[in-house]
């Protein structure tokens, strides 16, 4: 067991009636780092977070946060964590300031201390002007910042963020990202869940990809991208053509995915000089008219696609996964 791990989980399982939410998850987060737990809706991200924040009990497995067992020492764990979760909201009828003071007092701060801390946090999260407005009047971005502030009231060493930017407009999202980066500069350990690949890519030191309650890949964003290999080739045809797949097969390592209308084809390639030229020439030789050829370097979206056989939001349908990657990444 590693002594510098702030969050550690072994074999967490959790069933809700007959639904398997978690099927044995291991997590490890070094002190002072950010782990992003990435997965589509229903993958088990929130369940894992609920267990680590003492809101749910695991069926089996164990986990420690800041060195304390989340089941046996739940009360102590709660003193060391801040939580910002979508289903753990603040009070609509209180002002921003009253909310923060209340959270502070319920965390064991004296009233004067809680008030001082609230002023500090409202200032830091640019909410000072709205401090004495009732929460009902806050915008989505303001609420999220106040949620973050509430999670930080006690200066916890570990912060959990459940989908911190889901539902925010792009500007508010960038704002929240900036806030999160600053937090880690303060030495916080952070675990965040997200269904946005770019969010994990932008914020996290390490990424754990989970699907159907299991960790299917783990590593830094770079490692995940490297593991998936080269670039992706995407070709858009003027119209669907039977010969296209055959013409592309000598470039593509693995199988070619074809869109429903047969006009868009994609697959992994090893990028090299003149690749696009060769692709166009090969298609031309086969009598296929080409509208567009793109070679792009892998994104985390591609990683997800390769690992699960479906896109990050599950809309791409069942294509061929790359099972050999799973072993490589674990």
């Amino acid at each position, binding site marked *: 067991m590693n002594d510098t791990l702030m969050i550690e989980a072994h074999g967490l399982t959790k069933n809700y009636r007959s639904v398997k939410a978690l099927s044995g998850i291991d997590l490890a987060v070094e002190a002072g780092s950010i782990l992003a737990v990435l997965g589509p809706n229903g993958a088990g991200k929130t369940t894992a977070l609920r267990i680590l924040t003492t809101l749910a009990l695991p069926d089996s497995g164990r986990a420690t946060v800041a*060195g304390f067992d989340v089941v046996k020492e739940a009360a102590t764990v709660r003193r060391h964590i801040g939580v910002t979760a979508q289903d*753990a*909201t603040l009070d609509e009828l209180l002002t921003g300031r009253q909310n923060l003071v209340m959270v502070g*007092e319920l*965390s064991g701060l004296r009233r004067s201390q809680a008030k001082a801390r609230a002023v500090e946090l409202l200032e830091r999260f640019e909410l000072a002007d709205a401090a004495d407005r009732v929460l009902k009047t806050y915008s989505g971005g303001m609420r999220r910042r106040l949620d973050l502030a509430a999670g930080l009231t006690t*200066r916890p060493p570990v912060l959990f963020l459940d989908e911190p930017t889901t539902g925010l407009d792009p500007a508010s999202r960038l704002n929240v990202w900036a806030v999160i980066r600053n937090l880690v500069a303060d030495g916080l350990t952070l675990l965040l869940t997200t269904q946005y690949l770019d969010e994990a890519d932008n914020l996290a030191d390490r990424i754990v990809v989970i699907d159907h309650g299991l960790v299917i890949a783990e590593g830094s964003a770079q490692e995940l991208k490297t593991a998936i290999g080269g670039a992706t080739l995407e070709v858009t045809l003027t119209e669907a053509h039977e010969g296209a797949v055959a013409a592309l097969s000598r470039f593509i390592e693995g199988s070619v995915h074809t869109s429903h209308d047969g006009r868009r084809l994609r697959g992994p390639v090893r990028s090299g000089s003149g690749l696009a030229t060769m692709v166009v020439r090969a298609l031309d030789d086969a009598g296929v008219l080409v509208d567009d050829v793109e070679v792009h370097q892998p994104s985390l979206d591609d990683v997800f696609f390769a690992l699960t056989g479906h896109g990050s939001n599950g809309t791409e349908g069942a294509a061929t996964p790359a099972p050999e990657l799973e072993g490589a990444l674990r």
Partner: protein
Amino acid sequence: MTLASLTIPAPLTRPRSGLASRLHDVVVLTRRNLVHIMREPMQLSDVTVQPVLFTLLFVYVLGSGVAIAGGSYAKFAIAGLLLLNLTTSAMGTSVGLATDLSTGAITRFRTLPMWSAAVLVGRTFADLLSAIVCVVMVALAGLVVGWRPEAGALSVLAGFGVALLFSYALSWACACLGIVSKGPESGASVGLVVLFPLAIVSNALVPTQGMPSWLRLVADWNPVSSVASAVRHLLGNPNPSASIHDWPMQHPVVAALGWSALLLVIFAPLAVHLFRRRTTG
């Protein structure tokens, strides 16, 4: 390197245990609920508008057709109206809790190092304070329509105290309903279905002597009847049930205290249990 040797700043909180920190949490949450009432004063209509309206309606409409031996209907009815209003407004506890549970405010509380049952105690304390408002409103409306207490000041205060104790105990039962309900609306409708018959099938508004014998048996053993009789007894108001031989009607104060204690002993621990179960997935 170990966790202890890293320069992790200690959190601002201290270890929390003991009665003092529990009471502190209760005070914080009671205050929160009072702020809610100040922000949405309509929440108080159950204990302000309704008592006045009920008093006027029942005394002038029902009172014109009901003869009470040994006094006016108004003198008989105020204790009963007190019970009717307190019983139906106990629903506020279940609506309030169901609302909190539906918004996720309680999930937030559950992540804090606080005494989790403080959510329930704070809720019932705030509701007790609004019950006191209710008592004052009924008493004032009563004075206007001709009701007068005819016992010593201490006895009168004891009478109101017995009613408030029962209302507090009942709010724990309603807390259970609120926790198991699906949302604020169902919390309210369940409350109505249970509480309204409880208040009406009793001696609160009419003497039970005129009821069919089976209904009368139910009414005489209804906790609300015991409390209404106890309040009438302590206020020195006419209490026709005193001539009924069933035990609770002969010993209304003891019965009222007993019913309240029983409700508390059953429903307070049950509410805490249901609350923990509902908020720990």
